[in-house]
């Protein structure tokens, strides 16, 4: 199973996600990217992230994404 950081780097290899604590605010992820990212996370962790959880604040950084995954039943 890939880590969140690995998935982010696969989706957007041009960005250094480790250098940011606000992916959306820094322009690394936009609302359309969230669609792609959610699909990758769902597939990797075997879960289905709720539509109500697909909001920018849940995708600010690796920690908030991991919290979202736990909430949706992923074993991290």
């Amino acid at each position, binding site marked *: 199973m890939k880590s969140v950081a690995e998935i982010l780097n696969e989706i957007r290899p*041009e960005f250094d996600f480790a250098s940011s604590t606000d992916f959306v605010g820094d*322009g690394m992820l*936009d609302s359309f990217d969230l*669609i*792609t990212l959610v699909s990758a996370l769902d597939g990797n962790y075997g879960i289905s992230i709720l*539509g109500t959880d697909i909001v920018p604040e849940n995708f600010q950084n690796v920690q908030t994404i991991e919290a979202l995954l736990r909430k949706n039943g992923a074993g991290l």
Partner: protein
Amino acid sequence: MRPVCTVDEVFQGIQSAKSGAVDFRTNFFPVRERLHLWIAHGELASVDCQGVTFFFRKDRDFWHFYFCATSLASLQREATTLSELKTEPMVTDLVGSEPGLGEMSALLQCAGFRSYARLQRMARAVRWEESRSVCEGLQVGLAEKSDGAAILNLLERSFNHYAEQLPTQAEVELAIERQQIFAVKIAANVAGILFFETHGVTSSLRFWVVDERFRTYRAGSALMLYYFKTQRTVRRFTLWVNTENANAILKYGHYGYAQDGLMDHVLANKMIPS
């Protein structure tokens, strides 16, 4: 439909559909600042139904149609009986990966929409400093306030306003003020423009167009190279292009853009001409 008067009304409408949602569905991803502009110009309206909030944005001679639904079932139920879809010209956008859009597209076609256009997103990653130089001989610079009408006219002559999210006069004026439009002028005419929005390390190219009368001057190339050269902190460039515009796709490919898998299915109801 009733007019939306505050930004809070929009977010309350979205939240109302989200709360208790079992399978939340939406095609509405509003940016607060843009909402302010639409509301100030009286362009936004809504309808609250059981489990669904619909939003409508007036744009020239039609409405953009958005939905926030607690589930696919509630959207199907309410959209098929929504009177506005039968009486007003409407266009809606569904964005996602190609396989994921079929179900929603089929549902909206049952509610009176038809497939109208398809846009694909293209992206260009930058992992090194740009080295190409700007074309000599042409002066590229920021558009000025007095260019606003000519820019809007050029956009409206060059793009399909139902499918390609053309800006309003107010949005063009704001973009000029924010230095988001580059222009090439030839003999005091706006010969070509490049309209973009940069947010952090990502820049979205909204429109790139050269007036037919000036297409032998290489103004398009000058604009694009100037754009890349000035956006030094940007690491990712994106844009949306109509899948039928093979010429544009080829040109974007020349500048390093490639399809990234995201699609926008544009649907129109029967009151929108073919």
